[in-house]
């Protein structure tokens, strides 16, 4: 009998041990180090990211009517205001371009060596960010909003999931289309060997009809050793504008040049949530026919 008990116990230990070993690790414990120097891989949306989008190109953006009006009225000369000269890209555009190359570092608790935060530096206008990993809550509605926002992160199945609020109002495309200061951005960082991919969504209660999604990729660049110069300095590059000069296009202005240049119906360049889905291609064909018919009719 003793022998039987011993055998059963040993089997239980062995089987149980194997079963326990097969249990998936808790999602929060699967982690991948993403720190290091990363070179940007601009193989997606290059025309938008490097040269920059043209006025009136809202393709693929789930803008609502308010955002469309805001973007149509946006005059790039506004960046010549001395008080806007040194403004960096907002965090909701930062990863889009140009670049940026990134330096991601872990901030460790000096005693416990726990990861308190990640910092991301790099790119256009010193994109210094802090991503808090210590479980702190997002701040009060009265707290300041910044260009880098307030970010917290957690590990979910090997992805670093970063939630950012308290951003400043800023562009999501360099042609005036904006998101408000009240949005939420969620970034998923995941690493495959020497490649780092980040997919992100932004929810905006003021300017977007649906969450907007984009993705970007970087390649590990151990020889990067980025150097960071001074931040931007404000200069008055025009010199003859009074304080309070605010250029904008008059109400009702539209920018059809992008559509004309690319042979697109104007309506197809206006964005909106339905333009995100494959079915929209059929609608573009309809618009094309309607536009051709209007031209024939001489309207």
């Amino acid at each position: 009998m003793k022998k039987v008990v011993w055998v059963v116990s040993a089997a239980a230990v062995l089987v149980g041990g194997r079963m326990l070993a097969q249990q998936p690790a808790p999602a929060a414990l699967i982690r991948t180090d993403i720190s290091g120097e990363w070179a940007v891989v601009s193989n997606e949306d290059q025309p938008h990211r490097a040269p920059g989008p043209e006025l009136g190109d809202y393709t693929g953006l789930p803008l609502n009517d308010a955002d469309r009006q805001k973007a149509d009225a946006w005059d790039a000369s506004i960046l010549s205001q001395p008080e806007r000269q040194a403004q960096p890209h907002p965090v909701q555009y930062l990863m889009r371009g140009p670049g940026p190359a990134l330096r991601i570092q872990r901030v460790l608790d000096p005693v416990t060596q726990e990861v308190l935060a990640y910092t991301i530096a790099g790119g256009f206008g010193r994109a210094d960010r802090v991503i808090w990993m210590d479980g702190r809550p997002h701040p009060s509605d009265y707290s300041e909003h910044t260009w880098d926002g307030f970010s917290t992160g957690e590990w979910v199945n090997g992805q670093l999931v970063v939630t950012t609020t308290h951003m400043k109002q800023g562009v999501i495309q360099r042609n005036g289309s904006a998101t408000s200061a009240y949005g939420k951005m969620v970034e998923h960082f995941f690493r495959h060997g020497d490649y780092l991919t980040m997919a992100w969504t932004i929810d905006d209660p003021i300017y977007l009809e649906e969450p907007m999604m984009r993705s970007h990729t970087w390649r590990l660049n151990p020889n990067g050793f980025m150097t960071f110069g001074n931040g931007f300095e404000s200069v008055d590059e025009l010199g003859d504008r009074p304080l309070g000069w605010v250029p904008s296009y008059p109400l009702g202005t539209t920018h059809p040049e992008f559509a004309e240049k690319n042979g697109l119906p104007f309506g197809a360049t206006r964005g909106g949530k339905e333009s995100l889905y494959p079915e929209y291609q059929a609608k573009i064909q309809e618009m094309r026919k309607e536009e051709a018919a209007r031209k024939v009719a001489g309207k």
Partner: protein
Amino acid sequence: MTRSGQALIAVLGASLLVAAVAAQQAPPPAQIPQPIYRAPEDTRKTGVRPEDIKAGVRPDYVKLREQLVTIPVQGKLHLIGGAGSNIAVQVSDEGTLIVDSGDTTATDKVLAEINRIKVRQIRWIINTSADLDHTGGNAKIAKTGTANAAGGGAAANGGPGGATAFNGDRAGILAFQNTLNRMSAPTGKAASRGVDDWPTDTFFTQRKNFWYGGEPIEMWNIANAHTDGDIIIFFRKSDVIVAGDIIAADRYPYIDATRGGSLQGVINGLNQIVAMAVPEYNQQGGTRVIPGHGRVMNQSDVVEYRDMATIIRDRIALGIRQGKTLEQIKAMRPTLDYDGNYGSTSGPWTTDMFLEEAYKELSAKPAAPKPAAKPAQ
């Protein structure tokens, strides 16, 4: 050496050894890094939870900010929000100075918050205008304070002048002259507010300087802005500007034309704040601005608000030049792109009220105050 002497030395040695080991074992305090540009955080949330932020779903931001919140802003300045209007609190060894006293209904809670952060009694209240939501706590809060320097004796910096003789030992109330005029009345006529609410010290020049709490404080009158009695206050060492309702950041420019306010005056005030504020590099941080309503700002946020006010002014003015009526201009929806941020169909200042006042001002001849050629620095 006697046996007792040896025992004493042994005990001392053991104590030293224990103390040394304990000192070595005590972990140093964790060095928690802080964000580069951000004021210390308030962990009591009044905003929307991140998981509740959705595209196309606009929360009622005004309602969200009704809960009383205190956050350190910069230097010696704190912000108490949710008290009707924002209240700025300068905490120093010299005494406590507050800018605006909030709505009457919030006074007890405001006093509890001030008592939590102050180190000395309240000695000064500054009013940015005569609005009830900015001055409702004047009488009650002033009574809890003192005009006298700590330890008794004459007040430093002049104290509240001769007012103490009339009002007793309480905090002084500073404001622009027109603010007192709005709250008081000539002898024989009924005043809109009780005498205890009235400012005890006023000025009628464009600028008044004042040193308090270890820093220079500049008070600037902004002519015909939200009303005809507005001032902005610049705490120079703390590097904080308190803007009053020159910036009511949760609504369109708040113009009380019946009390001398104008859209152009508000824009002039915004331009002056933009000129006075200096951001750190990349337009982050630097001078912080506490608006009359809404969250803490820096120069970039003021620029965004100023640009909105200017662009809408220009749209309405263009419509007027084209001969359009108010209704035709409203039909053009000149505020559509900003309504999500500042618009309202109810409450003290709706989008329609703003458009109507702006139209009235811009179609009037002669126009309200001209744009300031060069704001005073």
